[in-house]
């Protein structure tokens, strides 16, 4: 395989994220093509296509915000399994009768505070309590769902706030507000990761924790902050989800942790840390939302959809490994 030594942008290591994003966009185009073949009546209508695209983006909004936080945690060498539970907890807490009496501001404030504090608990347990992230956030998952059920009495809490309820259906310049929230969070996330010391520390700690420590970086404090950031994203997502469903409940945001991790991974975030992009994660989320949408349009059952999702994750990771090794090596490795 001497061809490996040839140069070109597709061989250039630093262009790897771009290459992967282009691959994912290719997947999106392919999905669109499949849709056009199945339902030419719908995909032939430009207005419908625009509407449907906005629907997909809106469905990607809440999970997208969570995935931005998750991307930071994974790049920093961790994992956060508690995100779905934190959304439920923040959502339920912000829609109690007492909280709702403070209006939309009070609800948003509560959701964000609950998310950040729960994230901080994760962070303290992991950074200072030396718990493995998997265990600490798994415990938080169970506990937060329990607390959410306790607070809500296992009932669906309807939001009566006009601002919150209207947020999801409102549009600014023709774009749904929640999509704008996602774009804002992703934009801030991109700047944070690529242009600030916070992002640089995240990459350093995830890439080589020992090197970061010996370079004088406060690894523990930063690790703690990463989980707080993830919690913050959960708080924002909780408000978005409450707005979409005009209610909250303890069972909400089921399995969001897996969706967020999967989206980050197919977006090119290395599960072992040190590498990943916000853009890739974002496109990953959109790919999954598009699949869900396409399956609804094609009237295929959910179980098939889950199988396809699983297949795509495996495929994406296989491609990730193929990057470094030739096909031949991969085949002869057994």
């Amino acid at each position, binding site marked *: 395989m001497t061809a490996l030594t040839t140069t070109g942008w597709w061989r250039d*290591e630093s262009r790897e994220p771009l290459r992967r994003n282009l691959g994912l966009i290719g997947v999106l185009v392919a999905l669109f093509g499949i849709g056009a073949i199945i339902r030419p009546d719908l995909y032939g209508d430009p207005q419908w296509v625009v509407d449907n695209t906005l629907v997909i983006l809106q469905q990607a909004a809440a999970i997208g915000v969570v995935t931005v936080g998750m991307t930071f945690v994974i790049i920093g060498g961790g994992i956060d399994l508690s995100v779905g539970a934190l959304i439920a907890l923040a959502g339920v807490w912000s829609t109690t009768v007492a909280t709702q009496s403070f209006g939309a501001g009070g609800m948003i404030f509560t959701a964000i505070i609950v998310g950040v504090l729960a994230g901080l608990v994760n962070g303290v347990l992991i950074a200072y309590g030396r718990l493995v992230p998997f265990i600490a956030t798994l415990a938080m998952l169970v506990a937060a769902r329990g607390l959410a059920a306790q607070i809500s009495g296992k009932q669906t809490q309807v939001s009566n706030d006009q601002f919150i309820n209207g947020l999801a259906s409102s549009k600014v310049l023709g774009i749904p507000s929640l999509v704008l929230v996602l774009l804002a969070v992703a934009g801030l996330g991109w700047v944070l990761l690529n242009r600030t010391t916070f992002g640089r520390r995240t*990459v*350093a700690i995830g890439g080589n924790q020992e090197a970061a420590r010996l370079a004088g970086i406060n690894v523990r404090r930063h690790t703690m902050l990463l989980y707080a950031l993830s919690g913050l994203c959960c708080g924002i997502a909780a408000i978005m989800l409450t707005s979409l469903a005009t209610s909250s409940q303890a069972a909400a945001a089921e399995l969001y942790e897996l969706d967020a991790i999967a989206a980050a991974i197919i977006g090119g975030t290395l599960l072992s840390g040190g590498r990943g992009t916000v853009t890739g994660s974002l496109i990953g989320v959109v790919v999954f939302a598009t699949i869900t949408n396409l399956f609804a349009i094609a009237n295929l059952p959910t179980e098939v959809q889950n199988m396809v999702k699983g297949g795509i994750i495996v495929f994406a990771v296989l491609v990730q490994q193929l990057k470094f090794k030739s096909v031949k090596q991969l085949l002869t490795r057994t």
Partner: protein
Amino acid sequence: MTTTEPDVILRLSNVVKDFPGVRALDGVELEVRAGEVHCLLGQNGAGKSTLIKVLAGVHKADAGTVEWLGEPVSFANPQAAMKAGIATIYQELDLVDDMSVAENVFLGHEPRKFGFVLPGQAARNTTTILRRLGHAEVPPRRLVRALPNAGKQLVSMARALSHEAKLIIMDEPSAVLAHDEVANLFRIIRDLTAQGIAVVYISHRLEEIREIGDRVTVLRDGQTSAVNLPARTTPTRDLVSRMTGRNIEYVFPPRPETERGELLLEVENLSRDNEFHDVSLKVHGGEIVGIAGLVGSGRSELLETIFGARRADSGSITMSGKPLRGSVATAVRAGLGMAPEERKSQALLLGEPVYRNMTLTTFSRIARFGFTDADREQRESMAVADQLELRPRDVRRSVSTLSGGNQQKVVVGRWLLGGTKLLILDEPTRGVDIGARAELYQVIRQLTAQGVGVLLVSSEVPEVLGLADRVLVMREGRVVRQADAGQLTEDDVLDLVMAGSLDTSGEEAA
């Protein structure tokens, strides 16, 4: 077996192994006969580990031939070498702690019937093998975790025998053993050789080589500097000079005749259990203090403790008169910097470009209001890259594409950028080729000209002697000698670090 010597089982001729930027083996010869203990001697970095890995099937030789039982071979993987009858016992024993002795011995080739493993038979076979090793008392069902180091070594050997090994390679087996356990190890080795099994024995301790070895092959800078010397009768002076004499002279920059600066680092009576004891040293601005010692002498642990990465049990560390309290962050703030021993695992972000590696300690300072300034980082990194003559001179390149020497320059450059007053260098030239070494020495000397103090550790004695102004010799966690570099010769230092060997051999001591 049609070769000239009927009992030669392994013959290596002109074996070459290249790693990016370094030629680890450069025409190595080795001949091992059945039933002998063949000792492999050489300094750190001479190529012993690479040679072992070639024999064990971990690496493939780039050139040369390996003849095993008269047939040229090239093992595709460790399993193939094992199957052919070559077993390797690494220093860090590759056993599964939470499995039993028998399970470890038969790991990967468990006695089976219809696809079911037969634990009873494995245990019986293990006992048989252990009896061959003279240790039938070890219970085959005990967890390996519960065994002392000597016991674990025994299990490794039993595993080798379970594969019908004809050659067992032992990498510094005595390093993890207590004195009386070594005697037992030698008894086992004699039993093995009596059964016709050959042993390649690697050790730093001359005394052991004298006692157990039959023939010695000496490696130096990836080449064989002597083959098949008689282990008992070759004079120590001869062995040492063959280990240290070199083809290419290191080019050390001249020591400037300047006054040394203010006292920077002062370490007093520093101790850590089982690592080092009662170490005191001083480093002034503008001087290089070198520590010579073998792996396991406690030198790396000492450096990490000074840098705050480990906590001292007793003693004190002061920097510019202020006490340091065991944390890396405070050490860095006080002006310390460290280039650790394991560059890749302890210092570099391999997926990141050079400039981000160089600014790992300084990006926060360069940043404004928390926003990083990549342009300024690149400019400053470029200036350092120029100063260090980094090749290629492209700071946006991924650091993983650089050679070992240039990677080391990146790590040193990191601390140059940080305005570090005292730089700790742990094995700065490991894995660095000869040409790049001279440059690194130049860089280090330049630093002192700027008033920086350097604390250097190297297992290569000439490096310490040639580069440092003052030298500390460490052995088994203690400083055994402290002197100006000019007052010591390489042989003096080797005598000190290998002390004990000279007493038994009755050779002259400096």
